[in-house]
């Protein structure tokens, strides 16, 4: 692969068609044949990076600016990069519970963008969805950044905190995420402050032998029914067995 394929033109040298065409291929196709490469504009049309949206009191959203990882997005072919944090205006959420989509909005004459929210994720030449959040009618939760810069697992959309558990009991936790979580983790601790080993709960022990999983979800709640054995109804693991202790449920959507 040769790149670039264009070359300098000396003063007085006539500019040949090949000069122009090589320069154009460098600019549009990184020096490759159009049959082998998408144009830069097409390739970057859906580019978006470092767009981490966080909660801003009260019931607002902020796209935080970082000079080291500056937010960037292409909307309608325009390369946009704000030079400071971008905040959603107050009062954008109202009415019944719903999932809202967070949009970056381009305006003519600006190389930055603003934020808006909408209950539809559809995009166009001036608007692109960059995340979502859940409005429960009073509060925001489950803010998701589709093009965030945070490495690793994002913060959970729901954290129950520790609560006391016992065997053969059903616990309902209101996660309020507006959808069945895509992932979850149920932890067990033998102490109320969660110190020491947290054991991942996958099953509980059943009286008379065997084991069963314990957790179910709908769009509003998590349901944990501990199993019947007093010795291992809450957690049945090679790491720990218990019919008591404490649970903590984490959910991601």
């Amino acid at each position: 692969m040769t790149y670039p394929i264009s070359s300098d033109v000396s003063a007085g040298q006539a500019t040949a068609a090949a000069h122009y065409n090589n320069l154009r291929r460098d600019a549009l196709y990184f020096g490759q044949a159009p049959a082998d490469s998408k144009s830069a504009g097409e390739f970057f049309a859906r580019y978006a990076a470092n767009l981490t949206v966080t909660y801003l009191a009260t019931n607002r959203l902020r796209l935080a600016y970082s000079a080291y990882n500056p937010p960037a997005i292409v909307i309608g072919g325009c390369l946009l990069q704000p030079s400071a944090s971008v905040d959603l205006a107050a009062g954008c959420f109202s009415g019944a519970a719903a999932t809202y989509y967070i949009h970056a909005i381009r305006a003519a004459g600006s190389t930055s963008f603003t934020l808006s929210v909408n209950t539809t994720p559809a995009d166009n030449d001036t608007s692109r969805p960059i995340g979502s959040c859940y409005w429960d009618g009073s509060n925001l939760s489950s803010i998701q950044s589709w093009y965030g810069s945070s490495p690793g697992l994002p913060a959970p959309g729901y954290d129950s905190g520790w609560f006391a558990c016992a065997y053969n009991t059903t616990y309902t936790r209101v996660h309020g995420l507006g959808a069945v979580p895509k992932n979850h983790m149920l932890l067990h601790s033998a102490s109320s402050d969660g110190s020491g080993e947290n054991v991942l709960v996958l099953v509980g022990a059943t009286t008379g032998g065997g084991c069963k999983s314990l957790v179910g979800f709908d769009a509003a709640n998590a349901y944990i029914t501990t199993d019947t054995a007093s010795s291992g109804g809450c957690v049945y693991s090679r790491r720990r067995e218990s019919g008591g202790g404490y649970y903590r449920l984490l959910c991601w959507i």
Partner: protein
Amino acid sequence: MITIIRNPDRSIKTYSEFSDDPAALLPGESLETVNAAFSEYSRRFTLACAGRSGETLRFPRASGDLTVEVRCPGESTAALDINGQVETLPLINGQAALLLGTEVPGTFVLKPADTARYCPAGQAILVIEVV
């Protein structure tokens, strides 16, 4: 500030570090707010053996008597449910020791007898298996 959930019979089902939502209640259950820290509330009644609690303990048969440490700060007695039998223990400085024999294989399930006052979950329930 924590919340507790009571069963329809008024026994305490659970208590939570974060406030529970009324939507978490099953039919007949009720929600109460308690002005206490979660760790403080969890220490109102605890059971331990060999320094361990909140998990099932196993000991071999004929391994000598086991000492269960009962802690109920600020109280002079503690009523304990041991496999369905209630035993009231005198407390000194809110503590007592209960001896369990290991001659016969079986399971001891210990928890507070007054479940309207103390939650039979968390570190207030202790299961010991003699195998």
